[in-house]
């Protein structure tokens, strides 16, 4: 117990005596953690949005108006049994009209449907067919309209008017979202590597400045761990302070910028991103661990006297 107190006092003393390397470590850790703190939610939001977009892409199977409810039911079952189909959703004529009205309303546009003669509804009923993966879209489409005797696509049911062909759209979405995900991942990896190197280098410099001291400690009979603990305590303190500064900045940023904007900009609303408390805990933990373990490991090369 006395030892623990001794090591803590030693670590704190080293920081007091030579503030410059300590401050350098703290700033480095703060910048790194800030970077991570911004990066993690951004990555999550983007990747979430990309998935959302991918999920919205599906096939629309438009039906003739004279399709009977039995025929519709049969077709729904048929479609559901196709491989790679994740879900089939029936949209009736009335629902289609309502969706259109809601959309016009949401965009504050004039409700054109009121001008339709005699409350007629020109919109067809349809099935929204979602493949389990965007890449399987083509397979599902050709299952719905296999090539007929004359070589042209023939729908599997007579009530199918048209299968909306969103091939181009799907392909470009697939490419773009895929690219965005990879790009973000690479950026994140690079930033992480850069910040780890930065923290490592700062620690190395601060220890290098005291290598004579470490040598003297070795020569008067201090064990490696006896020398190492104060350095690790120092790293722990630097990591904590740096992490705390970064978290404070993140919190201010969230309160002042992100939250007010989130109401108006859908992209940063981020319902499915990490909870702020969890993020703080992770960031602080990582900052302290990296800083302390980094100090301990860097010291190794100076302990070979």
């Amino acid at each position, binding site marked *: 117990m*006395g*030892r623990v107190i*001794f090591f803590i006092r030693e670590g704190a003393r*080293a920081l007091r*005596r*030579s503030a410059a390397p300590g401050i350098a470590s703290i700033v480095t850790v703060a910048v790194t953690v800030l970077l991570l703190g911004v990066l993690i939610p951004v990555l999550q939001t983007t990747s979430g949005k990309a998935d959302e977009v991918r999920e919205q892409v599906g096939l629309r199977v438009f039906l003739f108006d004279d399709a009977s409810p039995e025929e519709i039911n049969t077709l729904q079952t048929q479609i559901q049994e196709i491989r790679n189909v994740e879900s089939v959703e029936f949209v009736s004529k009335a629902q289609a009209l309502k969706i259109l009205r809601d959309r016009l309303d949401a965009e504050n546009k004039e409700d054109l449907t009121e001008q339709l003669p005699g409350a007629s509804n020109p919109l067809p009923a349809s099935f929204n067919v979602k493949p389990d993966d965007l890449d399987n879209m083509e397979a599902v489409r050709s299952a719905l309209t296999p090539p007929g005797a004359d070589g042209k696509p023939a729908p599997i049911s007579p009530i199918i008017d048209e299968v909306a062909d969103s091939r181009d759209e799907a392909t470009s979405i697939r490419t773009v979202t895929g690219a965005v995900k990879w790009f973000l991942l690479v950026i994140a990896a690079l930033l992480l590597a850069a910040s780890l190197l930065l923290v490592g280098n700062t620690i190395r410099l601060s220890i290098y400045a005291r290598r*004579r*001291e470490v*040598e*003297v*400690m*070795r*020569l*008067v*009979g*201090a*064990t*490696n761990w*006896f020398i190492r603990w104060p350095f690790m305590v120092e790293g722990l303190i630097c990591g904590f302070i740096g992490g705390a500064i970064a978290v404070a900045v993140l919190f201010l940023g969230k309160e002042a910028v992100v939250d007010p904007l989130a109401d108006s900009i859908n992209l940063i609303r981020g319902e499915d991103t990490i909870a702020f408390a969890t993020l703080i805990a992770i960031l602080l933990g990582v900052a302290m661990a990296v800083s302390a373990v980094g100090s301990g490991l860097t010291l190794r090369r100076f302990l070979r*006297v």
Partner: protein
Amino acid sequence: MARYQTSGILRGRERGQRRPEHLTERRSKPPIVELRQASKVYAGGHVALERVSLRVDRGEFVFLVGPTGCGKSTLIKLLIRELEPTEGEVLIAGKDIATLSNDRIPYLRRRIGTVFQDFKLLPSRTVYDNVAYALQVIGAARSEIRTKVPDALRLVGLADKTKNYPDQLSGGEQQRLSVARAFVNHPPLLLADEPTGNLDPATSVGIMQTLYRINKTGTTVVVVTHDREMVDKMRRRVIGLDAGRVVRDQAAGLYSDEESTREFAARLRDELGVEDERY
């Protein structure tokens, strides 16, 4: 006559070896320092020590003399395993220290107080804390530190400078601080590498007196020195090194085999019955 701190590494294991006559009552203990055909060749081929064999018994006071570059400091470094011999064995209290694992080296060094030529003080600690550190590394209780550190500082005459930092001390004071740190946990063996180098004669005498006092408590003291006057005055065992070899080992020797011109003159005057008008 002497008390011995025997523990761990320095506790003798070999029994029944013959000791010199004057140490017969401690026959069962191996010499505290023993070199067997130890050589040290530095990378680059410089031979610092060449097949050196010597032994130092407990309680002895030994001067290690010789010209610069003759391997004295290398010998000290071998004893605390700051360096390892290229060939041969270095035994401390009968144990070949080459067999120590890295983890055990600190425990060897705790039993050997070392006064380094360049002091090797901790610049960020006060005089008091520098001495205390040597006790802290061995896990001494705070109460023990509070009594032993002032004692050691009093012994070297630094009791009124406890709160100073090493860079606020003179060279002699730093050297004495180094002595205090080396001695504070009463090691059975004290090595001093040029403890009076660069010091004025008065300060040198002070340090030698301190080492002598430490020796009187039973500690074996090995002093590397260039200080001819000191060696001649103390009349202790002198081991002479030259170009990495032991060239001389005398029980109560002078710094040099050969008489100095002054001693030669004194002898001549004695023999011829001439009075020295200077005195």
